[in-house]
């Protein structure tokens, strides 16, 4: 894991720097949106990581934890790490979307189906993080949180199909549309692809770091508990 962290961190940084240079200076302004199109090299990639990568990984890890054959605290820690990073990306998705919406739609926020379901997703996963802080036996907490993650993940397909199921102000998919025919080309398409790779790499680094933190915390608590028991036993012997 240490080697992966050493590779992923600098790679993510380099890719994001390249994405910012391409997005702000190299790609041309859009015929309709003008310079606002440059937010497309940020906002969809953040949403991709939050919705599909982070919460997808959290749901998968939760299923693997709940399934008795594959039950392991590793999956619980992976889900926890993935949700925390996913919440950061979801909040940024909402903020960057709002910054794009103000000059385009004329409002910072509207109760559109895509926006509302995404905000609900953020609230549900913040609830998951709150649930993790409720004191409980580690296995009880893991099971409780896995169920909560799966419940929250039901909102992911609702967010995805919200632009199809309801009439929304938010536009439909640019790349992953029903015909799989991208509506973006040339340097703009390549920069969009680069943004997806860059933020996914950053997510991988963040999740591994968060996972490592979770492991270190558990090991530290175990070591402290063992030291406290030893001290108590020593007290018993001396008295």
């Amino acid at each position, binding site marked *: 894991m240490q080697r992966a962290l050493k590779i992923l961190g600098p790679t993510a940084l380099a890719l*994001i720097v390249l994405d*910012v240079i391409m*997005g*702000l200076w190299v790609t041309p302004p859009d015929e309709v949106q003008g*310079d*606002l199109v*440059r*937010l497309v090299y*940020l*906002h969809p990639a*953040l949403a991709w990581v939050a919705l599909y990568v982070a919460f997808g990984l959290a749901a998968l890890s939760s299923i693997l934890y709940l399934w008795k054959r594959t039950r392991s605290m590793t999956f619980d820690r992976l889900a926890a790490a993935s949700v925390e*990073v996913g919440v*950061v990306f979801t*909040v*940024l998705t909402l*903020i*960057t979307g709002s*910054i*794009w919406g*103000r*000059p385009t739609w004329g409002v910072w926020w509207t109760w559109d189906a895509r926006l509302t379901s995404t905000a609900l997703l953020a609230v549900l996963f913040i609830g998951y993080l709150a649930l993790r802080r409720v004191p409980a036996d580690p296995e009880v907490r893991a099971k409780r949180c896995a169920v909560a993650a799966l419940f929250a993940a039901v909102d992911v397909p609702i967010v995805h199909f919200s632009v199809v199921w309801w009439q929304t102000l938010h536009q439909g998919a640019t790349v992953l549309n029903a015909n799989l025919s991208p509506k973006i080309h040339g340097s703009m398409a390549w920069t969009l692809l680069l943004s997806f790779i860059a933020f996914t790499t*950053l997510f991988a*680094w*963040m999740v591994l*770091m*968060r996972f*490592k*933190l979770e492991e*270190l*915390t558990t*090991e*530290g608590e175990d*070591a*402290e508990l063992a*030291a406290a028991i030893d001290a108590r036993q020593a007290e018993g012997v001396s008295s």
Partner: protein
Amino acid sequence: MSYVVTGYVVALVVLALYAGSLVLRVRRAQRRKGRSES
């Protein structure tokens, strides 16, 4: 263009702060683990 710059600055600053907090939390946990083991 000001909206674009604001979007980039907000996103990159938040991600940098979160990444920094992860690095610090991991270092603190490593120190804590080292202390409790010794």
